[in-house]
């Protein structure tokens, strides 16, 4: 089969299709989005009738994947790192229930926060939950690890985490496909109580999980992704995890590092490998992308007070992603920097697209709030978060998906009245609805503006669960119909929109203003597609 040129994300998606996955579940989030998008766009996936619709959020995605696994079929669920916080309850308890059909949880971390609120390291969650991890160092490994992941998951009956970071997710390289595996047939778990986590059952399963985790250290498939390279210069031994191996070898043109190197791409690690490199070298350097998870562990595992260098002692930066230059500096190799960036070069932060409805909404809100002291606009995560930047300076918070509504409720409880929430349509159905129910129950004096561009814009325009449903959702949650107002954020409606906002800000209870205008990106894409359709007729 010829080589495909695939993003790391796409390699995982293609592998899922080839490895007999029956369901792909996800909520969009950089850098994981392209996994589901690839499966959705794949003709093979369509022919194999693989389930591949977006979920409302990462928790619903995780649980749907677990349900498919319960029924004996292979499932994959993908999310960005902070998505795993949302899915954590399901994830951690899925380790206790175990699986039936193979279950792979793809966690895409974003060290250096290219598109995220933090740079949390998903390997912590895996350790916390006693779930094995595969961490590819290149696109081919990412592909192969999906096959291995399903195999391990079905052999040990545990979920498997596939952990990637931004650089691999969004880097393209050649990938060779393997022979295809058939999907599993529908089969229920052999033990009908496996998934019933009553305390007595949970205790037994947890005990079993701890045993499985220890035996995974010696599993051959898992271990096949780790490799020991001898080196004659034994003053330093290097342990690289995942993609950091590439930054190491990049510094040696013939790829021969000359020192002992242990390349680790799967966890839990067989401790004897670690002891071997420790015994064979005077000092150790630990290279890992993300938090110093393994570095901390190593300090505990290795007896004899061996010096371990890495992110904790300052040999490497404590924060941010690695690159060849950082690793070179840690190895004492000379820097290779080219010219400096001229002083005239300015920052170019992201901004609203020309003609974006969010901008018109903020312009109206700015004037509607003119009579109130500043500092009362709680916002959320999406394109509309760009309202934080000048010239708008329109929002006072952006924390986690859904927090706009709930923080506004809490601030109103504290006496900040009126409190305003600004939330996107997709974020609202992800995690805003439950907060709105809280507000309704106590009739909180909050004004919730749902800035509805009818798409999940920030991540590239995926279908939004909220489309055509917002009014009925809000009404169903108990918001008074008189205080559900729909406006069209256009300059020609500016005065009218200000007036409506002012009325609702003055109302001493829950109001929802739906500011609805289609995202100009999806609108222009739709127009182009319509033209293509008529051209083809």
């Amino acid at each position, binding site marked *: 089969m010829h080589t495909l040129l695939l993003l790391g994300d796409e390699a995982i998606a293609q592998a899922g299709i080839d490895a007999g996955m029956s369901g792909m579940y996800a909520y969009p989030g950089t*850098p994981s989005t392209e996994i589901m998008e690839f499966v959705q766009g794949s003709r093979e996936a369509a022919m194999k009738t693989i389930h591949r619709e977006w979920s409302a959020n990462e928790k619903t995605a995780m649980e749907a994947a677990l349900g498919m696994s319960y029924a004996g079929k292979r499932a994959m669920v993908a999310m960005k790192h902070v998505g795993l916080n949302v899915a954590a309850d399901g994830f951690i308890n899925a380790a206790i229930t175990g699986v039936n059909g193979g279950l792979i949880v793809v966690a895409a971390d974003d060290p250096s926060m*290219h598109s995220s609120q933090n740079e949390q390291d998903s390997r912590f969650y895996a350790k916390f939950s006693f779930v094995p991890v595969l961490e590819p160092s290149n696109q081919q490994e990412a592909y192969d690890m999906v096959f291995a992941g399903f195999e391990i998951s079905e052999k040990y009956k545990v979920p498997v985490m596939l952990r990637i970071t931004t650089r691999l997710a*969004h880097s*393209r390289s050649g990938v060779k496909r393997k022979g295809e595996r058939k999907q599993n047939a529908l089969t229920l778990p052999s033990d009908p109580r496996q998934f019933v986590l009553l305390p007595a059952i949970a205790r037994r399963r947890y005990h079993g999980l701890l045993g499985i985790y220890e035996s995974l250290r010696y599993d051959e498939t898992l271990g096949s992704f780790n490799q020991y390279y001898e080196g004659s210069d034994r003053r330093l031994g290097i342990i690289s995890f995942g993609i950091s191996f590439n*930054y190491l070898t990049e510094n040696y043109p013939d790829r021969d590092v000359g020192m002992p190197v242990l390349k680790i791409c799967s966890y839990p690690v067989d401790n004897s490998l670690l002891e071997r490199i420790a015994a064979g070298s005077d000092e150790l350097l630990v290279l890992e992308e993300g938090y110093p998870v393994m570095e901390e562990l190593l300090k505990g595992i290795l007896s004899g007070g061996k010096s371990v260098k890495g992110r904790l002692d300052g040999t490497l930066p404590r924060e941010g992603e690695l690159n060849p230059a950082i690793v070179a500096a840690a190895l004492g190799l000379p820097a290779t920097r080219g010219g400096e960036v001229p002083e*005239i070069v300015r920052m170019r932060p992201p*901004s609203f697209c020309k003609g974006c409805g969010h901008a018109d909404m903020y312009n109206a809100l700015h004037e509607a709030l003119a009579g109130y002291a500043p500092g009362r606009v709680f916002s959320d995560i999406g394109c509309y978060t760009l309202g934080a930047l000048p010239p708008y300076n329109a929002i006072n918070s952006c924390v986690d998906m859904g927090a706009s509504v709930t923080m506004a409720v809490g601030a109103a409880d504290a006496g900040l009245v009126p409190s305003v929430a600004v939330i996107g349509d997709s974020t609202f159905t992800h995690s805003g609805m439950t907060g709105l129910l809280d507000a309704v129950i106590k009739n909180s004096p909050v004004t919730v503006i749902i800035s509805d561009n009818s798409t999940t814009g920030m991540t590239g325009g995926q279908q939004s669960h909220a489309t055509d449903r917002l009014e009925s959702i809000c009404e169903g949650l108990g918001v008074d119909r008189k205080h559900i107002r729909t406006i069209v954020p256009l300059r020609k409606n500016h005065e009218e929109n200000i007036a409506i906002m002012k009325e609702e800000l003055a109302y001493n209870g829950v109001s929802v203003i739906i500011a609805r205008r289609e995202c100009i990106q999806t609108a222009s894409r739709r127009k182009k597609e319509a033209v293509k359709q008529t051209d083809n007729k």
Partner: protein
Amino acid sequence: MRNDIILAGVGGQGILSIAAVIGLAAVERGLYLKQSEVHGMSQRGGDVQSHLRLSDSPVASDLIPYGKADLIISVEPMESLRYLPWLSSSGWLVTNSTPFVNIPDYPETDRIMSEIRKVKNHIIIDADAIAKESGSARSGNMVVLGAASGYIDIPFESLSDAVRSLFGKKGEEIVEVNLKALRAGRNFIM
């Protein structure tokens, strides 16, 4: 053989199409390749770059080390300067001359041009104007690629073939416009 290329521009200017054309041509020729892209937040009008690495032996890092890039291809002049720390002392900088102004403190064009001229090997091309002459204002990215093609170790015909297969789905007219833009850029340096 080894080409380390940085592609630079502003989100929405089409640098990923340049990357895709070179990438397709490289794969057709059996080269190893890694191409790192920016997706997500910055695509909303922020600065974007792609590291493209071609080689006849396996490529290690997805990122090009500082000082090792053979070529910077930029569809925007100020953006071409942002990546100078990556450019090797013998490397080439090929850039469009038309600024994309979406920030209030964008520097004066003259000052940008004089900084670009300080780079030993540079080519400045008015890709927007040439693209318009070739029939589509939106194919400036292909003009810049054409102008840079002489510094990429891939025959021009392979790049043209890649344009054909990349844009083929969009119809013959789009293919022709992009090929014309690519050739116009190429002719500029010949």
